[in-house]
C-alpha cells in the first residue's frame, strides 16, 4: 500500500480581534491509497480548518505558518502548499475533491444542478460539455438519483438527502483519488444518513478512492473508518485503527468521548459528559491542552505538551503522558452484542 497523502507538522492560524487563533497546531498523519480516515473532534478542535486546509480553501485571513502537505499519485509527488494557482486549480477536483455539508447551501441556489456540474467541470479543466453530461449522468445513477430529474432541478427542489448525494456525485466528477468530506451526515434524518453511509461504502468499493471525513459523530467513524484520528485544540491526540480506538482507547479525550455517546443497542452503560468547556484557541491551556478537563491529569501535564507517542498496539499512538494509567482504567471494552 502506498501513501497518498502525507501531512507533516501542519500549523494554520487565522486572525481575530483577540489575536491569532491557532486552529491547527502541528498535525502530522499519513493516508494510504484506498484508506478511509476519520478525523473526530468537536467545536474548537480545529478539524474544519484542517480539512479545508488540505486543499487550501482556507479564507484569506488564515495563514499556514509551517508544515507540508505532500500528495503522491501517478502524476508525481507535490507539496500542496507550494502549488501555484494554476496547478492548484487542476489539483482541486481532479486529484482531490471536497464534499461540503449539504445543509450549508453548498449549491448555488440560482442555477440548476446541471449548470453547477458544468461550471465545476469547466473550472477545473474539463471543457467538453457532452463528456461532462455523460459523466454527470453516470455518477448520479451511481448515487441512486434520477439524472433527468436532478440535473434539471434547482437546489431548493431537492431534499437534504438528495442534495448530499448530488454533492457526492459532483465531487467525483473528475475522478479524484482523494475525497474530503465535511460532516457528511450531520443535519440529515436517520434513514437518509443510513443511505449516505451505505452509499459512501459502496462507492469506495467500486471506485477505490481514499476518504478523509471530519465529524463530531463517533458512530460515523465506527461505520466507515479504517483509522481514526481524534483531534483536540488543534492537535491530533490519538491515532488508531478503528477497533483499537473504540475498544482500547488510550487518550483521556477519546475515552471521554466514548463515554459521552449514548447508544441505542446494547447496554446503556455509565455515561458521563466531559466536564469543562471547549478550549480557547487564542490562548490554549499550558502544557497539554486537555489537562483542565482530564481526570488523569497530574502536575506534569500542566507543563509538558506530550507529542503523539506509540502505545500498546501497532499503529496506535496517543499524545498522553499517562496512557498507561488510561489503559489500566479502561482495559479492553467488549463489543456490545448486537440486538
Amino acid at each position: 500500500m502506498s501513501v497518498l497523502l502525507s501531512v507533516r507538522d501542519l500549523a494554520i492560524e487565522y486572525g481575530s480581534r483577540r489575536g491569532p487563533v491557532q486552529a491547527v497546531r502541528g498535525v502530522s498523519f499519513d493516508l494510504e491509497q484506498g484508506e478511509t480516515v476519520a478525523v473526530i473532534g468537536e467545536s474548537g478542535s480545529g478539524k474544519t480548518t484542517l480539512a479545508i486546509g488540505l486543499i487550501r480553501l482556507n479564507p484569506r485571513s488564515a495563514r499556514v505558518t509551517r508544515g507540508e502537505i505532500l500528495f503522491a499519485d501517478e502524476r508525481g509527488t507535490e507539496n500542496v502548499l507550494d502549488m501555484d494557482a494554476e496547478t492548484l486549480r487542476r489539483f482541486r477536483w481532479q486529484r482531490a475533491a471536497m464534499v461540503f455539508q449539504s445543509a450549508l447551501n453548498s449549491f448555488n441556489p440560482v442555477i440548476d444542478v446541471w449548470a453547477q456540474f458544468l461550471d465545476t467541470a469547466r473550472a477545473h479543466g474539463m471543457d467538453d460539455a457532452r463528456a461532462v453530461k455523460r459523466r454527470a449522468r453516470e455518477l448520479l445513477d451511481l448515487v441512486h438519483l434520477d439524472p433527468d430529474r436532478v440535473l434539471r432541478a434547482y437546489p431548493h427542489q431537492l431534499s437534504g438527502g438528495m442534495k448530499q448525494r448530488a454533492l457526492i456525485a459532483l465531487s467525483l466528477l473528475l475522478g479524484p483519488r482523494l475525497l474530503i468530506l465535511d460532516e457528511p451526515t450531520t443535519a440529515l434524518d436517520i434513514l437518509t444518513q443510513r443511505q449516505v453511509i451505505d452509499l459512501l461504502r459502496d462507492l469506495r468499493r467500486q471506485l477505490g478512492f481514499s476518504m478523509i471525513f471530519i465529524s463530531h459523530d463517533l458512530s460515523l467513524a465506527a461505520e466507515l473508518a479504517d483509522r481514526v484520528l481524534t483531534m483536540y485544540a488543534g492537535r491530533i491526540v490519538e491515532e488508531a485503527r478503528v477497533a483499537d480506538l473504540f475498544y482500547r482507547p488510550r487518550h483521556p479525550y477519546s475515552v471521554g468521548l466514548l463515554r459521552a455517546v449514548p447508544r441505542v443497542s446494547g447496554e446503556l452503560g455509565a455515561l458521563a459528559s466531559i466536564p469543562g468547556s471547549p478550549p480557547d484557541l487564542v490562548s490554549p491551556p499550558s502544557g497539554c491542552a486537555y489537562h483542565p478537563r482530564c481526570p488523569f491529569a497530574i502536575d506534569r501535564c500542566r507543563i509538558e505538551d506530550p507529542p503523539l507517542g506509540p502505545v500498546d498496539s501497532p499503529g496506535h499512538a496517543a499524545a498522553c503522558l499517562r496512557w498507561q494509567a488510561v489503559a489500566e482504567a479502561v482495559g479492553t471494552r467488549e463489543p456490545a452484542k448486537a440486538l
Partner: protein
Amino acid sequence: MAVRDVTAPGRHIIELDRVSRTFATPGGRITAVDQVSLALAEGEAMCLVGESGCGKTTTGRLFAGLLRPTGGRLLFEGNDVWEKKGKDLAVFRRAVQLVHQDPYASLNPVRTIYDTLSAPLFRHRKASGRAGATAAIVELLQRVGLTPPMDFLPKYPHQLSGGQRQRVAIARALSVDPRVIVADEAVSMVDVSIRITLLDLLLALRDDLGVTIVLITHDLAVARYFARSGRIGVMYLGRVVELAPTEALVSDPAHPYAAALIGAIPEADPTVTRTKERVGLRGAEIPSLLAVPPGCSFNPRCPLAERGLCDVLVPELLPIPGTREVACHVAVRERTRTAVGV
C-alpha cells in the same frame, strides 16, 4: 419511576386530546399534526422522536400553548387551555415553558445574563431589588450547574459556550416555577461531549422539583438515554405511530417504521454497527406533507404493507400487550393474536 397507565383519564397534568394543526403553505394546506393524543403524568420524562416533517416540533409548540390547535383540545390539569381567559391563560403560559434548540438564538444578545434572568423574577414578584434578584439568580444558576454563579451575571450570551447558554435558557424557564418543560431539540446543537450533563440536568429537575419534561429529538440514542425510565413516542407525517416504554421500544419495536429507524442508526461501536440488522424499506424519501399517502401514511415504504388494508384504512393508535400503543394494522393483529395464544 413507574410508567403511568396512559388510558386512565384525570391523572394527567397535560394532555393533547385528538389535536390537529394545519398550516397554509404556498403549495396548499398541510396537516402538520394529525389527531394526536398524548397524555403526560406529572413528573414524567417523555421523548418524542421522528425525522423531519413528522410534526414533533409542532407538537411541542402545541403543548407549550405557542400554537393553537385547529382541531381537538389541549388540557392542562384537566381544563381546556384555549377556553381560558386573561389571568388563567397567563398562569398556564408560565406553567409550561419551552427550551429552544439553538443556544445562539434563545438569549437576547444585547442583554446580560443578569438582565435576562431578573426580568421574569421582577415581573412575577419573585424577587425585589437588585440584591434580592441577584440572590435568586445565583440559586437558579447553581441549580443548572453554572458555577461560580457570580461570574456569569455580567456576561453577555456571546461570551458563553453553547452548553452554558442552554443552561441559562433552562434557568430562565425555571425562574417562573414551571410544571412542564418542553425541550425542543435542546441538546442537538450542543457538543456531543456535554449532552449527557444537560440531559442529566433535565432529569434532575424532574427528580427534585417534580417538573414534567418532554424532550423532542431526532436522535433515538439521546431519547433512549433520557427517557430510560419513561416512554418514547415515535412520530411520522404528523401522527404518533408508536408509544411505548423506552426499553420495550428499543429492544422490540412494534411499528415497522420504528424498527427501521432503530436498525438504521449508526452506533459508536464498529462491530455492532457493521453487523446490525437493518429493516429494508421500499423508498428512501419521506413523502411531502402536501401529498400524504392514503390509508396508513407509511404504507408505500412499509415492508409489511398489505394491499387493500394498509393503503385504504388509517390505523388508529391502539393498545397492545405491554402498556404500549401502536398505529399499525399488521402489528396490532399479530401481537394481539400472539398474546391470546392463537
